[in-house]
Every structure is written in structure tokens, then in C-alpha cells.
């Protein structure tokens, strides 16, 4: 295996694909490599190829969560989602682009059980322990997407610019199916370059965790009111970051025996978040 350090996005795209994997802060990739969950012939360090920093409403995909959480120009919902994510050490290294593309924290997957997401033919979590898992979109894989940041960006109506296209954040994700375990629509040789984040009139992020800091979301609820319209983004409830159009959407949840407790939490947080962005 080798490490390459291209200095432009074009050069990076030329190197990616065919077992050549993009590396930003490495907080996800380094442990996955060591645990054998990711095999790569080459690592492409994209930190010189992808923009980093905040310019008005445009955020470079290489910007770290630590940089975002303290920037007064960033909407509250996104600042809070960053501040409540992971630990100071991780936020100092982890980029927002990498955060959107983080792999599932499902223990069966992390322990290399041959489940759907590893190309197998069943979901071990549904048959086994699944307290941390999904209440929506869990037909095939029942994992719960851990990104607080993606929930906030969904609520804000974020657009992404990649090396190949522009797309709403929601279109970056897809639910895995029995014959295609991908959870994103990003091509192997496509890089996220920038995020375009509208400024809302009001926004909030509420995160239920099993301790006050330093834990993945049990349920994370982001709400933002932009041009009079309120949007909701949820973390920890489905295999991908999840959008709700109203509190009534919660009636369509499909909780598992082990995840039923998440539904009342989601209901309470959504109600509270909607109140918080209704005024002010």
C-alpha cells in the first residue's frame, strides 16, 4: 500500500477508484484499516485537494468540526451538532466531509459479521442485539446513522458540490438494499468539495445521549426555519440521515423490539425543537 498526496482535486480524482481510497483527517479510516474492515491499495491524502475553511455560506469539505463549532457565522444547529459530536481530539482532526461519509457504528458490522452491509444475506442485529439501531428505513439493514452533523445540514437544506455534480445533501444517501449495500451515492472517484449552507431565521439541535458528552446520538433532532419553512433532520434513527416533514411522520416509524424506546424520545425532541424554532 502507498500514500499519495495530490495537490489539486483534478489530480486526486485521477488517482481515486480501483482500490485507491480518499483520506482526510483519518479518524474513521485509520481504525477501519487496522481492523481489516477497509482494504486499500493506496491511500489518497486529499487534504491539499479539497477546500478547507468558511467563506460566508460556503464551507470547504476539509473544514474540521472544531473550526465549525466556534465560528459565529455558522448557524446554531450546525455549531451545536459539531460541539456535541465525538471528543475534542476527534473534532480537531475530523473533517465535515469525512463526517458525512462515516461508516456505521453497528457492532456486528464493526466485528465483521457477514451481514447485508458486508455483502451477506441477513441482518445480524435484527436477530440479535439492536438497542442502538433504527426506527425508520430498517427493512434490510437496521443500523442507525450516527452523524449529528448530517442531521443539522439536512435541516438547513444544504447543497453539496462534488467533483462531478451539485446535489441536495439528502441525495448523497440511499437506503441499502439486499443486492446493493451502498449507503451513499458517491462514486469511488468523486470528492465532496464544498457545502452551501443557507442561513436560517432560527435553528436548534437537540441530542439524546447515554451520557452528557462524548457519545453517539441515541436520537438527534435538528430543526431549522428558513424563509418561513421549517425542516427537520434526524440522527440515530435510520441507516441514513433522516428527514421528517412534520411530527406526524413519526407515526410511520417501524421500531424494532429493542429500539421502541427511541420513538417517544424522538417525539419529545421533535416537539421541543419545533417549539424552539417557531419564534425568535
Amino acid at each position: 500500500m502507498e500514500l499519495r498526496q495530490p495537490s489539486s482535486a483534478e489530480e486526486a480524482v485521477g488517482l481515486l477508484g480501483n482500490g485507491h481510497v480518499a483520506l482526510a483527517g483519518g479518524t474513521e479510516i485509520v481504525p477501519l484499516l487496522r481492523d481489516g474492515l477497509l482494504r486499500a491499495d493506496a491511500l489518497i491524502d486529499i487534504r491539499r485537494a479539497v477546500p478547507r475553511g468558511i467563506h460566508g455560506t460556503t464551507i470547504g469539505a476539509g473544514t474540521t468540526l472544531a473550526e465549525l463549532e466556534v465560528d459565529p457565522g455558522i448557524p446554531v444547529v450546525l455549531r451545536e451538532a459539531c460541539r456535541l459530536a465525538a471528543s475534542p481530539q476527534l473534532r480537531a482532526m475530523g473533517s465535515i466531509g469525512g463526517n458525512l461519509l462515516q461508516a456505521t457504528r453497528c457492532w456486528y458490522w464493526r466485528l465483521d459479521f457477514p451481514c447485508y452491509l458486508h455483502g451477506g444475506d441477513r441482518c445480524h442485529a435484527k436477530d440479535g442485539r439492536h438497542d442502538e439501531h433504527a426506527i425508520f428505513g430498517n427493512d434490510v439493514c437496521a443500523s442507525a446513522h450516527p452523524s449529528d452533523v448530517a442531521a443539522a445540514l439536512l435541516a438547513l437544506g444544504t447543497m453539496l458540490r462534488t467533483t462531478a455534480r451539485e446535489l441536495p445533501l439528502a441525495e448523497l444517501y440511499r437506503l441499502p438494499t439486499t443486492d446493493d449495500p451502498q449507503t451513499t451515492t458517491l462514486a469511488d472517484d468523486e470528492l465532496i468539495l464544498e457545502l452551501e449552507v443557507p442561513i436560517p431565521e432560527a435553528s436548534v439541535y437537540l441530542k439524546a445521549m447515554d451520557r452528557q458528552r462524548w457519545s453517539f446520538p441515541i436520537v438527534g433532532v435538528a430543526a431549522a426555519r428558513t424563509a418561513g419553512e421549517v425542516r427537520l433532520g434526524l440522527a440515530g434513527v435510520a441507516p441514513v440521515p433522516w428527514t421528517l416533514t412534520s411530527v406526524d411522520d413519526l407515526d410511520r416509524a417501524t421500531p424494532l423490539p429493542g429500539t421502541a424506546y427511541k420513538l417517544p424520545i424522538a417525539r419529545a425532541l421533535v416537539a421541543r425543537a419545533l417549539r424552539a424554532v417557531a419564534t425568535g
Partner: protein
Amino acid sequence: MTINGVPREADVWPGESLLFALRERLGLPGSKNACEQGECGSCSILMDGTLVCACLVLAAQADGHDLVTVEGLGENGSLHPVQEAFVEAGAVQCGFCTPGLVVAVADLLRRDPTPSDDAIREALSGNLCRCTGYAKIFDAVRIAATRA
């Protein structure tokens, strides 16, 4: 790269972590290897002045950067004030979390010499200790803050 003020070189496998390179190739076992997943903070070091988990940094990506490990905190063979405070407060039991905490506290006090309890809690939230229950660690931070 520069480690604790000294230029160092190491031959590494491109996939290995900085923590592995420090401990196994560079003779610096002070940074502890516990979870290797970024969850416990016992491998915390400073990279260009920023607190990071060495287990999550690719060794090859540290090339050209300035690193400070727990071994590099004290000067001229004496302990760093934070290390002395940990000893005095009895904030060490098994000691596994200690090197990472010491680096994290030294980093906190450099940025904020008189941290509030909330600031201490926030700064140390990525460092887990299974033994002490954190009260003694807080005492150590307060002792160190009076001296730094």
C-alpha cells in the same frame, strides 16, 4: 517530523497509525495504546499544538509536523507542573489514562490558565478513566492551575 523538539525519522508501513510508530518504532511508549478507536484519549498528543488521538493519525500523514508527546512535557529532567499535580492529588491509579490526561490538561492550561469546572469537563471529555472517578483528576487540574 519533529518529536519533542528533536527531528526524527521512521520507516513506516503506509497504513499504520502514528501511535504504533511512536511506541514501536521510535521508542516513545508514553502514549498509551488502549482502544485504538479514538474513544479513550489515552494516546493523546499535540500535533502542531493541537490535541489529537495518535491512534487515529496515519503515521505517514504526520510527516513534516511538530509533535509533542507526554515524554516531551517536562524540561531538563524535571516533571511538568501538571505531572507534579497529578502525583500530589493522587490522581493516578492504574495509570493507563494518565499520559493522555496529562497532555490534555497541559494543553487546556496553556489555552486557559484558569479554567472553569465546565471548561475542564469539556476539555477532558475525550479522556476516559476507569479507576479514579475523575474527582482526583479535577483536583490535579486545580492544583496545576495555581502554579502554571
